């Protein structure tokens, strides 16, 4: 017979098995992955998040898509692409791109910053915000930011004639890096921290 405190039970991030918290590092009973105590997880998440935020700046300044048409070269940024679609009357697509490439990344940055601060310094302690839900939602919508990168890849692969050509711009790399690191930051964030300070 062993006596366990219910608060010492935790879920393995990889396989979901219930484990007893043994301090700093606990190897999971079922899959053997290391379950870290919260000590390092916010630092790692912060580092990824900062990288993502820095990469987001050039992603918006440089052209995402470069159209070469009969000798003239024209680049369009993410925001420029949205405006162009709006002016052409494709409102739903303009909205999808606006949500996926501009709104979601920014909301994700803000939510992660809020979560990372609130688990260390309980500012949101009394608020009624369901942080688990908030975290889960950012996890779910996060990958959809990749739409713009895929669209650029498809257009670049599809249109390369002698006179008309579309190529990806510098912002594609920057944006891909930004999305990649935001996803890493979200994965690195330890949900168990939310519970500890409730």
């Amino acid at each position, binding site marked *: 017979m062993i006596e*366990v405190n219910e608060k010492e*039970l935790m879920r393995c991030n990889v396989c979901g098995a219930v484990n007893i918290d043994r301090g700093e590092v606990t190897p999971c009973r079922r*899959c053997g992955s290391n379950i870290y105590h919260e000590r390092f997880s916010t630092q790692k998440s912060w580092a990824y998040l900062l990288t993502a935020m820095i990469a987001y700046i050039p992603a918006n300044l440089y052209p995402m898509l470069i159209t070469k048409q009969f000798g003239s070269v024209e680049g369009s940024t993410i925001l420029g692409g949205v405006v162009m679609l709006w002016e052409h009357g494709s409102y739903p697509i303009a909205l999808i791109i606006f949500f996926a490439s501009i709104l979601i990344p920014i909301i994700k940055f803000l939510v992660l910053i809020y979560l990372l601060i609130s688990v260390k310094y309980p500012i949101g302690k009394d608020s009624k915000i369901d942080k688990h839900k908030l975290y889960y939602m950012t996890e779910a919508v996060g*990958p959809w930011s990749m739409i713009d990168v895929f669209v650029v*890849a498809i257009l670049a*692969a*599809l249109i390369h004639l002698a006179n008309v050509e579309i190529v990806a711009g510098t912002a594609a*790399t920057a944006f*891909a*890096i930004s999305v990649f690191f935001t996803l890493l930051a979200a994965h690195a964030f330890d949900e168990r921290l939310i519970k500890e300070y409730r």
Partner: protein
Amino acid sequence: MKLENEEALDHLIICHKCHTLHEEVEIEDGTKALCSKCGSVLYRFDSKLADYGLALSATGLIFFVLANLFPLVKIELLGHEQFITIPKTFVALFDNGFYFVGLMCAFLIFIFPLLIFVINFMLFLLLKLRKSPDFTKSLLILLSHIKPWSMSDIFLISILVALVKLIGYAQIDMGVAFWTLVIFVGIDLYMSKQIHVSEIWMLRRRLYAQERA
């Protein structure tokens, strides 16, 4: 809380969404257990899980192969015909010198989706045959690591967005691979909604326990 030994922890479940502790109870075949706090699915019990999983992953694999072999979209622009396939989209990025984005796309829309279905297929096959418990363990660990990084569904929506941008400039024809990709994504979404990795772990425990007995 008193426990027999550490094995008894297997009968406890922590909700993956709200981290509430639950005790596993036996439920009827084909039903699911919900979290009492947030209502998300804790686990399902299906006695034919291995068969369903095997059938779905085999079907998915076939459609994935087809989706990669045939052209996704054909366009006619200024008298020239052009088409793309899934591999062509990221190879074109490589050709233009976008190695990072190209590599990322290759992993997100080709390698990971393929790997997930191959792993699922092997996993359910081995579980059905009740062979090599260690290998199924490594497969399950690998599966949960790459699961969040498969983006076929997002790629499918991206194709539509890209085509809307071309309306008015070019004549667009959907290729065979587009429809097979639609079916593949459908199977992918259905599988990730219906079969959670934790349920495969439970199945594995059940099957190998039977084997030992």
